[in-house]
């Protein structure tokens, strides 16, 4: 096979963040030959940056808490396009999965009775919205993601999982029968190109926040999995849905956890007014993120912003006192002092809504198996391909994710996929073969860059793409700007396809990795652009100036974007949970 | 200890070495203080009093302990220094040869000091050494 070194596994997991590690753990413990392939050493994955916690009805702060209430909040938060079978699964299995994490050693903060500490987060309620604010987010101070990721990595060390660290997955390999049989990857340390073959391939590559110029995401969040799927002919779902987190540090894009508002912090405008009381009289600063972000933008647009340019608002925490700040929010104390040069115990923090999370992604079943769609709009499983975590759209977040639900998503569905793949493997899946021509697509992308002799600098093109997405697809969206951006993206595609990789060295060539990441950013940006233009309504995080209202008649559905013909199709939302009655769409107020 | 070979440390246990190092340090420190203290209090000491003091039963036992402590303290200290700088990691394959040579050198000196020191304190005729 082309003299390519080939590695073979039963299960291949691409991505070593929370979802990938949870799935890897499940598979490694089952005894199947499992590898976790990651472009960074696992504990460098972006899960590490998650702060506030993992939302789950373990009934520690409130003994009466019920996973059904959590489910209600999540469905409402999703603006009713979250799949209710998946949400039901996540909320009901959640407690067990969180206890497993605790048993693995996750150092959760504790209540006085020694149970896991839970804090209030946005969009949380008791008794199906009737019982006031709930405290449902399990936290390890404000470093929950760090604690979770390290705990999972440690569990994998214990389970002897094989890690391919600092391997960059270039593309999926699909054989003639449409089965995914592994990936072509570059071992970054040597530059060697390897075919990593596997009976089952699971994408857990995380998000793509780097399509925006201002994002809380790590520099490595370039949507590699989404782009790989799109290039392999797998569609992506609801990719227009991008969450803007209300409290990114102004000018830095660094996140200040929603937990800071959960602990009692609030937002003020230049008049010192606690403006969220006007927009969300009940939940106030703990309304869901889309609502808070929009309110902040309106405040700034109407001239009530803070600072010399009146372009941000303030997050006030000083009234919480140093004890709460140091014991519950020590991580953000450190971040604010370092990056905003502000001591939250004394001064308010300048914040702006900042790109934070990709609700969309590869459509999957609850088992993690990737889905495509046939001509009759029936779901068709993609053989050999699974996806979990931010890269997937199972979909539990719909049009707007609730804080603390992403970590739960990672571990619940990482585990579910692990269990399912274990099942599938035990029924005896044979390794399908791949021909040279199946590998060709992936290899040609590498050689395209390798053979480039001149052209534009990838870093400049990346900056241009990010600025374009930032100006055209942020909190509020207009038809005119989106149309313009779509044509600019077409132009960018031509330029990126003829861009120049100057450094062609073999050993740890990060320029090559970044060039391929640029390809991926472009795929995600274009999918976002077309899907956002196509969804002619406002729902959750997708707020259009020209279509201000939610349109349940036409758009109470998922969007499904296919890259081959750049088409946008619709896919039905699941309204059939198996235990509880479905939650019907109603007006969404906080 | 799978990865750690420590055939030539004094006690083969890091903890024992650690404790011996500390205890011997305290003995040596106190002994030094006794001598310096005596000399400060008696600046014009003559030889008789000096030898009397040093070989009084308490000081003789103390001195013997101090010399033994010196041997222990010096060996552990010098062994540590040797294994820091004369390691396979830094010198390659031949490190163990150089380390052995160094350790033999240290052992010879330590023994010489030990016998010499005990001989003086216990006022043994030089011929016995």
């Amino acid at each position, binding site marked *: 096979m082309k003299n390519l070194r080939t590695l073979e596994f039963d299960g291949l997991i691409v991505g070593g963040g929370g979802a990938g590690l949870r799935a890897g753990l499940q598979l490694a413990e089952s005894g199947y030959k499992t590898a976790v392939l990651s472009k960074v050493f696992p504990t460098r994955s972006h899960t590490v940056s998650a702060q506030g916690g993992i939302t789950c009805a373990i009934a520690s702060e409130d003994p009466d808490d019920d996973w059904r209430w959590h489910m209600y909040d999540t469905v409402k938060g999703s603006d009713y396009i979250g799949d209710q079978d998946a949400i039901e699964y996540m909320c009901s299995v959640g407690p067990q999965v969180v206890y497993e994490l605790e048993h693995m050693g996750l150092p959760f903060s504790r209540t006085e009775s020694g149970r896991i500490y839970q804090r209030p987060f946005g969009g949380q309620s008791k008794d199906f919205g009737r019982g006031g604010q709930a405290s449902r987010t399990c936290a390890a101070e404000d470093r929950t993601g760090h604690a979770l990721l390290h705990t999972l990595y440690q569990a994998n060390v214990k389970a002897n999982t094989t890690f391919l660290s600092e391997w960059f997955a270039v593309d999926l390999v699909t054989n003639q029968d449409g089965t995914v049989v592994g990936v072509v990857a570059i071992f970054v340390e040597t530059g060697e190109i390897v075919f990593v073959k596997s009976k089952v391939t699971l994408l857990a590559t995380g998000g793509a926040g780097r399509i925006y110029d201002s994002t809380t995401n790590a520099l490595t969040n370039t949507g590699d999995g989404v782009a790989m799927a799109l290039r392999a002919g797998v569609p992506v779902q609801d990719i227009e849905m991008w969450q803007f987190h209300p409290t990114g540090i102004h000018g830095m894009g660094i996140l200040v956890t929603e937990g800071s508002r959960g602990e009692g912090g609030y937002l003020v405008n230049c008049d010192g007014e606690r403006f969220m009381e006007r927009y969300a009289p009940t939940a106030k600063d703990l309304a869901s993120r889309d609502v808070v972000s929009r309110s902040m933008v309106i405040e700034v647009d109407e001239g009530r912003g803070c600072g010399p340019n009146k372009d941000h608002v303030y997050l006030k925490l000083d009234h919480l006192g140093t004890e709460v700040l140091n014991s519950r929010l020590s991580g953000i104390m450190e971040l604010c002092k370092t990056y905003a040069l502000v001591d939250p115990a004394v001064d308010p923090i300048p914040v702006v809504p900042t790109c934070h999370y990709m609700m969309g992604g590869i459509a999957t079943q609850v088992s993690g198996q990737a889905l495509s769609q046939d001509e009759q709009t029936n779901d068709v499983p993609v053989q050999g391909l699974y996806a979990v975590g931010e890269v997937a759209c199972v979909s539990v977040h719909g049009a707007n994710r609730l804080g603390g639900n992403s970590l739960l998503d990672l571990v619940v569905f990482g585990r579910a996929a692990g269990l399912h793949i274990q099942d599938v493997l035990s029924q005896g899946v044979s390794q399908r073969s791949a021909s040279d021509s199946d590998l060709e697509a992936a290899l040609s992308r590498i050689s395209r860059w390798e053979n480039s002799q001149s052209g534009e600098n990838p870093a400049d093109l990346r900056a241009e793409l990010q600025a374009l997405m930032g100006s055209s697809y942020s909190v509020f969206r207009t038809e005119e700007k989106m149309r313009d951006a779509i044509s600019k993206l077409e132009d960018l595609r031509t330029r990126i396809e003829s861009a120049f990789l100057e450094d062609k060295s073999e050993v740890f060539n990060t320029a090559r990795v970044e060039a391929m990441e640029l390809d991926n950013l472009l795929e995600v940006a274009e999918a976002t652009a077309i899907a956002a233009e196509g969804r002619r309504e406002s729902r959750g995080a997708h707020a259009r100036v020209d279509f201000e209202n939610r349109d349940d008649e036409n758009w109470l559905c998922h969007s499904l974007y296919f890259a081959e013909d750049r088409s946008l199709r619709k896919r039905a939302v699941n309204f059939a949970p198996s235990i509880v009655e479905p939650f019907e769409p109603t007006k969404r107020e906080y | 200890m799978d990865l750690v070979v420590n055939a030539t440390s004094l006690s083969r246990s890091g903890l024992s070495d650690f404790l011996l190092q*500390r205890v011997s*340090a*305290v003995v040596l*420190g106190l002994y*030094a203080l006794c001598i310096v203290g005596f000399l*400060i209090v008696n600046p014009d000491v*003559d*030889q*008789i009093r*000096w*030898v009397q003091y*040093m070989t009084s039963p308490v000081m003789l036992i103390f001195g013997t302990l101090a010399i033994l402590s*010196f041997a222990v303290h*010096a060996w552990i*200290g*010098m062994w540590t*220094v040797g294994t820091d700088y004369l390691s396979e990691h830094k010198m390659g394959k031949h490190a163990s040869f150089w380390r052995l040579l160094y350790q033999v050198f240290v052992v010879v*000196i330590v023994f010489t*000091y030990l016998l*010499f*020191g005990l001989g*003086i*304190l216990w*006022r043994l005729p030089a011929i016995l050494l």
Partner: protein
Amino acid sequence: MKDARPVFLDLLAIRLPLPAAVSILHRVSGVLLFLASLYLLILLASSFGNETEFDQLKWDLGSPIHSTILWATLSLLSYHFVAGVRHLLMDLHIGESLKAGRIGSVLVLIVSLVLSVLCGVWIWL
């Protein structure tokens, strides 16, 4: 190929904080004392000889070279002693924080310097 990899360990290009200097000096003084102990033993031996030897020793110690060697040895001893006390205190969990570590190091340097001066006073005055 792996063996050919360079290692950056240019000690002149790495900033070492004060506690590191104190620790290295502790080691250096220890090795030097190991060698200087022969000198101390010889002093002890001659002080245990007959009365003439003892007086001769007292006389000798007045010479510039002899007294300088004695002073240097005592200074090394004081330093090693003081830095050793710091080690023992740290074993007892005293002075473990970065700030305390710095203060402790400064104290070690000051105290041992003072002792060294006192040794000089004692020998020469």
